[in-house]
């Protein structure tokens, strides 16, 4: 329990109070997603609870295949037909998961925008950049095409693509970084309240990735939007997020402020993940990620955990433990028997 006591002493109260006072703009409650496949039932997300407050940036971090993208795709109802979704995602008093396609189409793009990974694949290769950016304006705001194209050009200029030729170019004529900017422009042109960015820097070299992330943060601030960032890059998560949720094998295992998690990780998986960072000497996590078809009973990290105890593998589902501050505010949540 020493970790916990140290953390309680070291936590920054002011920031957590402001978070508690702020209203949640999106509240994901007990979200479970499974897929029926030929190999069996894949439990991609299990009991995920996450809050995104106004003007807040939350990073959902974890290894590839842990279910991060499934969680955000289910919020905007972009999962394939073989997915079965349970739980709720409350946005402005409405449960997004129970909305019909027509209502959802009205929210998607205009109020909740999504920036996908691999922009060269996500953009239509045979439609010019400016037309792809203008499309949401024409559909949602019903502006004439010429005005929408003007707006698209202005958006591209704001993102540093001021060259006159760029709006008339096709995605295959642009570099990966430029395509990602086109996608950001298309996502941000309607000034959404929530931006979901799914690995926005994936496939870009270090310089382009930094620039793209800078643009996203700048647009987020100017629009006063909240950002849900999906990434496996811990350094990036720390740089631009307020809070972090760590996911492992379909479950969120720890949440808290980024600095608190980096300075004092509580869950053994979070500790192990941080030890993989270059500045901590690339210490690998022993073993490999478990199957999502037959996940381990009890704690899912149990087979690889250096701090495991006999009761960790017990069948009963492990619940999130809330760690409260002196005034009852939630400082940290962790899914581990040690706390």
């Amino acid at each position, binding site marked *: 329990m020493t970790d916990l006591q140290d953390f309680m002493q070291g936590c920054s109260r002011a920031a957590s109070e402001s978070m508690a006072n702020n209203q949640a703009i999106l509240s994901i409650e007990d979200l479970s997603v499974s897929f029926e496949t030929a190999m069996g039932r894949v439990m991609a997300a299990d009991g995920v609870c996450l809050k995104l407050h106004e003007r807040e940036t939350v990073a959902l971090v974890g*290894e590839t295949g842990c279910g991060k993208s499934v969680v955000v795709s289910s919020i905007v109802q972009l999962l394939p037909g073989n997915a079965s979704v349970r739980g709720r995602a409350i946005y402005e008093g409405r449960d997004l998961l129970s909305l019909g396609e027509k209502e959802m189409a009205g929210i998607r793009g205009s109020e909740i925008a999504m920036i996908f990974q691999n922009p060269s694949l996500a953009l239509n290769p045979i439609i010019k950049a400016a037309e792809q950016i203008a499309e949401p304006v024409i559909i949602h705001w019903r502006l004439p095409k010429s005005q929408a194209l003007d707006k698209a050009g202005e958006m591209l200029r704001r993102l540093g693509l001021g060259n006159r030729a760029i709006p008339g170019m096709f995605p295959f004529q642009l570099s990966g970084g430029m395509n990602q900017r086109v996608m950001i422009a298309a996502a941000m042109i309607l000034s959404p309240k929530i931006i979901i960015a799914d690995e926005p820097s994936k496939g870009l070299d270090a310089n382009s990735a930094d620039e793209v992330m800078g643009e996203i943060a700048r647009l987020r601030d100017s629009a006063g939007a909240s950002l849900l960032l999906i990434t496996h*890059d811990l350094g990036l998560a720390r740089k631009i997020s307020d809070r972090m949720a760590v996911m492992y094998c379909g479950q969120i295992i720890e949440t808290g402020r980024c600095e608190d998690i980096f300075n004092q990780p509580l869950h053994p998986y979070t500790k192990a993940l941080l030890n993989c960072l*270059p500045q901590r000497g*690339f210490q*690998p996590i022993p073993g*490999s*990620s478990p199957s999502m078809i037959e996940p381990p009973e009890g704690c899912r990290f149990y087979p690889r955990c250096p701090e495991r105890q006999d009761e960790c593998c017990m069948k009963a589902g492990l619940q999130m433990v809330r760690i409260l501050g002196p005034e009852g505010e939630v400082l940290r949540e962790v899914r581990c028997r040690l706390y």
Partner: protein
Amino acid sequence: MRAEGIDKTYVSGLVFRKRHQVLRNVSLKIEEGRTLGLMGPSGCGKTTLGMILAGLLNPSAGRILYHEKDIRNLKGEELRAYRRGVQMVFQDPEGSLNPRKSIERSIHEVLRLLKTPEKEWRSRTLEALEGVGLSEELLCRYPSQISGGQGQRVALSRVLLLNPRVLILDEPTSALDISVQAQILGLLKDLQRERGLSYLLISHQPEVVRFMSHETAIL
């Protein structure tokens, strides 16, 4: 292994030929059992140099020496020894494996080339997987059904079957998660210790080069 005064110029266009020189008078030395880190910005010719060393591209000028012999003059058994002795591991593991062949078939392909008797295939395959920390259940899967880290391990196991002396690692971990990156780097270090392998590690991540390399070259 040494490279001496390597130049490489790419020529493009049919009528109006454009010349683009990527390497100019590059020399380097890879010593036995050691790692040479090769760093540089995108597009500076790191991969081109790696491919020239592996014999996959011809240089416009200069020569490559393997055990002090120019590789252009190698013939017969010596050429085979160089071809097997110097292997390249690429950035994208999915791109290095045939998507239409199961992992087992991909490994058997190498054993066939090595003229290994068919009755030994099973045991050699399992041995190869064990060497890179993979389990037998992976054998029936296809490249799209395994993770990036597993794919990189499979690619590495195929290369190791040839019993190479020099591995040219072209950004071997940049497509992988941070936790898998740590595992692969640890595995590469273990293999170097056990087999005395030499590495040319091409990377744009200074932390990776610092962690792995004995010497560093900047292009």
